[in-house]
């Protein structure tokens, strides 16, 4: 029914430190996949490979039938560090990719306006990033990527530096956007609750060498409300994933001590 299917065949990497073992992962259109794993498991590496910021040692990544060779606007990325351009206002940051594409100014203004409304920062459009809170900066960064209308949105622990309350609000906002736009999303995190709450599928990765350990479908209903985090179904999933992750962290720790 949908001829667009995305195949990430064998995103592989072998280096002195084997950050990512030969890995196969297929992400379907409109899927929200979270990649969950302890730090140092190669989940960020995987994401950077998809973004084209890093080249796989072996294997290839295919997006809509085309192999990925370099970064491009079809794969928007939100980083954990704050990467808004400090010399541009919020509005100009959101318009960055559109300008780079050569979208005419009036059209740019319309798109930027829509995104400002969606992320609730209309009154901050002329502010510089330094004048914003961390949460506002990451909201703008998400809007900046999505304004480009990418085929897939890549998020590398985007809420990692935020406090718990802001983080929860940001999760809801992102989920809200996804429920409306139905973008394909690949979201890297080490937070189990975050992984379950957002995802339609959680991919658990092992630590050193990084490889996929489990692939869990999350069939909690949409739209999701934050109260779902306390539901029994959620708790079952959380308990299961906690076990998977715990085994990994313990393994990694023993390996560290041995070496």
């Amino acid at each position, binding site marked *: 029914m949908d001829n667009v299917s995305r195949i990430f065949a064998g995103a592989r990497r072998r280096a002195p430190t084997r950050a990512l073992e030969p890995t196969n992962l297929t992400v379907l259109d409109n899927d929200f996949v979270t990649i969950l794993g302890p730090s140092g498991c190669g989940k960020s590496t995987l994401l950077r490979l998809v973004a084209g910021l890093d080249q796989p040692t072996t294997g290839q990544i295919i997006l809509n039938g085309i192999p990925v060779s370099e970064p491009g606007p079809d794969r928007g990325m939100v980083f954990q560090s704050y990467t808004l351009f400090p010399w541009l206002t919020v509005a100009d940051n959101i318009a960055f990719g559109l300008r780079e594409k050569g979208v005419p100014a009036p059209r740019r203004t319309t798109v930027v306006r829509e995104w400002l409304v969606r992320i609730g920062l209309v009154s901050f459009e002329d502010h510089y990033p330094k004048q914003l809170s961390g949460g506002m900066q990451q909201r703008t*960064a998400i809007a900046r990527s999505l304004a480009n209308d990418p085929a897939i949105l890549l998020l590398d622990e985007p809420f990692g530096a935020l406090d718990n309350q802001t983080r929860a609000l940001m999760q809801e906002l992102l989920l809200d956007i996804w429920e409306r736009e139905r973008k394909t999303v690949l979201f890297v995190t080490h937070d189990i609750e975050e992984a379950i709450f957002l995802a339609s599928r959680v991919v658990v990765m092992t630590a050193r060498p990084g490889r996929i350990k489990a692939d869990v479908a999350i069939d909690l209903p949409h739209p999701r409300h934050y109260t779902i985090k306390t539901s029994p179904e959620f708790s079952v999933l959380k308990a299961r994933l906690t076990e998977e992750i715990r085994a990994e962290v313990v393994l990694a720790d023993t390996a560290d001590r041995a070496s």
Partner: protein
Amino acid sequence: MKPLAPISNTARLGLGILFFVFFFAAWGYATLGGYVSKTFLADPLTMIEEGWLLLTKHGFIGDIGITIWRVVGGFVLAALVAIPVGILMGAYKPIEAFFEPFVSFARYLPASAFIPLLILWAGLGELQKLLVIFIGSVFQIVLMVAVTVSSVRRDLIEAAMTLGARDRGILTRVLIPASAPEIAEILRLVLGWAWTYVIVAELIGSSSGIGHMITDSQALLATGQIIFGIIVIGVIGLISDFLFKWGNRHLFPWSLA
């Protein structure tokens, strides 16, 4: 006093002025009190009197003007050459590999040592003075700009790439705007150094300018005039510094906030 504890603006200004008061008081005490011979060091009052005479009778304003012109002229030429080269060196590693060793070597060549050579090449005219400033500034600016551009945050460049920016876009829309405030800061710093070069250039083989006036005054043992000349240079330096800071604040409001 506690370490790093801030003070009010009034207190800051007052303390700043207080040192000047101490300075002039000590100077006045040493000279007017007769502890130092007038031949070697004029007292503050004589200095002001001689300075006033310089400005009103001896056309010192013209000397000041010509010195400023030389500094600004040589400095602008150096900046026009050095900024593009520095940006390209910072952005493209082969260009850096090509220029960097020579520029690193050239920056240690003292501009003042070139003066005899430059006099041979360019005579005693304005061109020679401009060249001294140019040589003294250009290599410094090139290297500092190159370092600034190459140290632009890597994640900003990556973010731009995932937004579809190509080589040209990364250069013009990320590297250059990201380093612009620091480049302006580099220019402010190097302009300060250019002031020392111009005076040296004017001390040797010159018929006008602040440096020339200072050499003339030395022959007349007019220490008041020499000190006045030095103070004028200091004041002009301070003003140019202030203008630069003010300009940078208005050009790059995003870098402060």
